[in-house]
């Protein structure tokens, strides 16, 4: 057994074929708590290549949204503190001024959110809201903005885009609204789209449609995507690579097929085995016992230790992200010995 290469102490980014578009190195986020600083995210390292679709998964409260908002510079200015680097095209976003951030938001980086109901301004038409994004970043006329907004609505598969352009959010169904949100986020052709649980609030049938739209857009325009979801099944349909987060840390990373077939972290394995679509077994799905610890209550051991069936004495120290193969990383020192069940085992 070769000694796994430890990467998180001296963050080296995972190797990908192309130079990465987004390179997150040792990202740490803490908020001002009532009496002490509370670290919410620690040592988050992953990258997204141009045009690539990467899935960020984990249960509720693992820090996925916080990570996404940090990439957009949208966390509260007061009280938030950051560590590490957020490199977009080699430029560290964490060093940007607010004015510089604004030039990139909506332009280089787009984000869509979970709740299409409340994420659009209720008193403006969706066309106006898309056109506004365009006119913020490009010097174009209202007429031109209108044309491009209609194009964007068409691109996300909204029928009758001209009529829908002048519709108010409340006049559209949930799925339509989420499409409008996507149209708004992609209108300026960002290099990276962060989609935070884009389908969670929607009906199952609509979920698949939205996922397809996102996949198509990414494939057609070469836009990279960070697809945030608690649903590993959904993510595996769209993304070529998967990053698993647990309790504010990245615990596993790898190509989708590798991760599904042979997870290298007990947490990912647990997530996979709780998926109805992948388990052949009948009856109750084996869900991971216990709950994600709250920020502030993170143990000094392996953070998954109290829920892990494979826990040993060696697990009682802090775990680092280890390289366990070509493009594979795991935050479990036992990952070499364990033969964890994936979706087919």
């Amino acid at each position, binding site marked *: 057994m070769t000694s796994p290469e430890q990467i998180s102490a001296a963050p080296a980014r995972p190797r990908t074929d192309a130079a990465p578009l987004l390179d997150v190195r040792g990202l740490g986020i803490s908020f001002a708590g009532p009496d002490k600083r509370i670290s919410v995210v620690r040592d988050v390292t992953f990258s997204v290549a141009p045009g690539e679709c990467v899935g960020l998964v984990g249960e509720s409260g693992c820090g996925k949204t916080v990570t996404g908002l940090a990439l957009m510079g949208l966390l509260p200015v007061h009280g938030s503190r950051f560590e590490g680097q957020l490199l977009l095209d080699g430029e560290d976003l964490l060093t940007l001024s607010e004015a510089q951030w604004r030039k990139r938001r909506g332009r280089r980086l787009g*984000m869509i959110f979970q709740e299409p109901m409340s994420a659009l301004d*209720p*008193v403006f038409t969706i066309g106006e809201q898309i056109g506004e994004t365009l006119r913020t970043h490009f010097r174009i006329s209202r007429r031109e903005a209108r044309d491009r907004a209609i194009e964007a609505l068409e691109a996300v598969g909204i029928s009758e885009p001209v009529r829908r352009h002048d519709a108010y959010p409340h006049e559209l169904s949930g799925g339509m609204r989420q499409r409008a949100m996507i149209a708004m986020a992609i209108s300026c052709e960002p290099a990276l789209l962060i989609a935070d649980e884009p389908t969670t609030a929607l009906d199952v049938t609509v979920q698949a449609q939205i996922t397809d739209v996102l996949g198509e857009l990414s494939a057609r325009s070469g836009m990279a995507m960070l697809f945030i979801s608690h649903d590993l099944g959904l993510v595996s349909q769209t993304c070529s690579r998967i990053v698993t987060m647990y309790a504010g840390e990245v615990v596993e990373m790898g190509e989708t097929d590798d991760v599904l077939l042979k997870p290298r972290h007990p947490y990912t394995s647990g997530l996979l085995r709780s998926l109805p679509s992948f388990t052949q077994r009948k009856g109750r799905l084996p869900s991971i016992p216990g709950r994600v610890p709250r920020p502030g209550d993170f143990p000094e051991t392996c953070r998954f230790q109290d829920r892990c069936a494979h826990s040993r004495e060696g697990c009682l120290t802090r775990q680092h992200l280890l390289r366990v193969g070509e493009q594979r990383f795991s935050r479990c020192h036992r990952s070499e010995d364990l033969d964890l069940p994936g979706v087919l085992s």
Partner: protein
Amino acid sequence: MNMQLVRFLGWRAVQVLPVLAMATLAIFGLIQLVPGDPAATIAGEYATAENIEAIRRDLGLDRPLWEQYGTWLWNALQGDLSNSLLTGLPVLDEVARRLPPTLFIAVFALLISICIGVPLGILAATRADSALDRFVTSVASLGVAVPNFWLGMIFVSIFALGFGWFPTTGARPISEDFWGAVHHAALPAATLATAGIAEIARQLRSSLIEVLQSQYVRTLRAKGLSPARILWKHGLRNAALTLLTVIGLVFNHTLGATVATEAVFAIPGAGSMIVNAAINKDFPVLQGAVFVLVLIVISMNLIIDLLYTVLDPRVKKD
């Protein structure tokens, strides 16, 4: 669209009738509790019982109460507000003479409330929890709590008696001397506006803070919009819905408070007319005044409702 508007207005007009009837019926009932007899007042000190009885018959005061009220309401709905029991003059003329100074002060006070309350609310909201915000919020709570007549007397003693900038009492007719009317109305309007400023600033602040923390403002930030654009375009446009409601309420309160404030400033407006009519049990005058005031309040609310349908696309127009 126009057909819809007509139907909307028609429906509102139908809704207004019961409100008018209830308000005037309440006044009619209350006035029966006031001691005294208008007929005796008119007849004078040396009148005989027969004299008074004759006058009562003349005025219709001998008829059953429901009949007196019914006749009055029937005529009022046809635009005839009857005559004063005491002077015999048409109530409508009296109201037309006394209402303008009252309305002028109320509208003046409303404008002051908006012009000061709105900027204060915005300032407090954009600097939420700053020293300025806390100052505005606490002064606003004070402004809502302070009694109007007391504030009026303070204003008079400082700005009229102390500095001599404004007249202490009286009013000028707007049609003859507009700036004179403004000068005379300034202190009473300022007095009345205090509560309005406070109410508008408070409500706008909390509404704006709520909007600025909403999900869609996060979306706007994710689009790269500047904070100024988010505040002035989206923040105010959304908070304007609350503001509209508050302005309607403030107008109603202000109009009510004007009636009392007139006493402090000795303004010959609707207030003193109502007080005199109540003392003399001159019910046609009292009901006429209330009738017109209620109509004004209802019209104001109707305007607000109409503006609402313009400002908020979610309000169905039928």
